[in-house]
């Protein structure tokens, strides 16, 4: 594996919450083609780790580097697509309008028409409904439609399978695997054990 394949390298991550050590001296690296599953019991710090990797949580120690972005002279945030617990949709905007502003934050044209992406996540016919009128699973699907639209290599997904039905879970697993095969990488948390995982990181064991 050449250094160019390394998308993200984090070293010596230490996170404390209320004087409780979530993890200490943790090192994580993510290379192109990898699907890394972060697992552990509730409260083990999975979401915290993901938020730290995305730069959302700055209350930690350690170093995070983005070797490929640095080598290419790009801002590292261009390499990153983050989907958190909350889908980030405005309830009075339609599904399509929500995707439009979320994708525009990247400053590049989406890879395909927004309606096509919504159809790909099973929401054909729901484009013009306010996001507030959608079910939890449908909202999650709107957020996941961004995976079809944006061209960031590293996807960091917090519980992406929540509220998704069985067929949707299968389609999403295939999408993640295809993304890794195409040279991308995925870091995600989930409580079921998908077959697509190439590596696991177990949090929450006594440090």
């Amino acid at each position, binding site marked *: 594996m050449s250094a160019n394949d390394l998308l993200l390298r984090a070293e010596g991550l230490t996170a404390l919450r209320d004087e409780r050590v979530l993890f200490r001296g943790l090192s994580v690296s993510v290379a192109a083609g990898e699907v890394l599953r972060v697992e552990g019991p509730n409260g083990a710090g999975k979401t915290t780790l993901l938020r730290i990797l995305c730069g959302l949580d700055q209350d930690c120690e350690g170093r995070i580097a983005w070797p490929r972005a640095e080598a290419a002279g790009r801002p590292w945030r261009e390499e990153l697509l983050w989907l958190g617990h909350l889908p*980030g949709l405005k309830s009075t905007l339609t599904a399509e309008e929500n995707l439009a502003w979320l994708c525009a*934050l990247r400053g590049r044209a989406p890879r395909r028409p927004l309606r096509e992406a919504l159809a790909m996540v099973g929401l054909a016919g729901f484009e013009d409904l306010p996001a507030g009128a959608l079910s939890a699973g449908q909202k999650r699907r709107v957020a996941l439609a961004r995976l079809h639209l944006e061209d960031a290599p590293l996807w960091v997904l917090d519980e992406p399978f929540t509220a998704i039905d069985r067929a949707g879970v299968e389609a999403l697993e295939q999408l993640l695997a295809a993304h890794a095969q195409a040279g991308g990488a995925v870091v995600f948390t989930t409580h079921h054990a998908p077959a697509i995982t190439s590596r696991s990181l177990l949090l929450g064991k006594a440090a």
Partner: protein
Amino acid sequence: MSAFAALFRRDLALAWRARGDLVNPLGFFVIVVSLFPLGMSPDPALLARIGPGLVWVAALLAVLLSLENLFRSDRDDGALEQLLVSSAPLPLLALARVLAHVITVGVPLVLVSPLLALMLNIDGEPFGVLLSSLALGVPVLCMVGAIGAALTTGIARGGVLVALIVLPLYIPVLVFGAGAAYAAGLGLPFAGQLAILGALLALSVALAPFAIAGALRISGSQ
């Protein structure tokens, strides 16, 4: 479409879909100003003298009232996280948000103020100066207030805290804004006060976005 334009358009669309909420600061502004003649004295000479100050204080409080939820809804639905991880410069995104707020809340306040000025018997030169000072000053109030709103976004009930953080910063704007109209009423030169308000506007547009961005990063990591 650039991230700035997209976010600006999004905020205008959000404001339009919830346009009932836009009436709240406006109604507050009108009611507070109309309480003073009732509570003090309807004497036209007195009202003309204290009127500019009343309009300014009421406008300041109305802006303050509108700020509490500026970033709160974005935090509650996860949109703030998406702004924070965006590769677009965060100060620029903050500027887009505040600019939309100026247009949806600040501009209506300035537009309704001539009515209140007439009600308080302000006319002639002070009338024009009061309107100019509000047009220059209300955007400053929005920019500076947004820093306080961003700082308290992570706190459950930050309303009073926003006021405590922001009101001291509002003092120079109030002094020069109300002072310009007051000076015009006395027949004194007022161009200096308006020039300082303009300078404050330029300064706040140039610097506040960076402060807002820094505050949002702190609030976002709580």
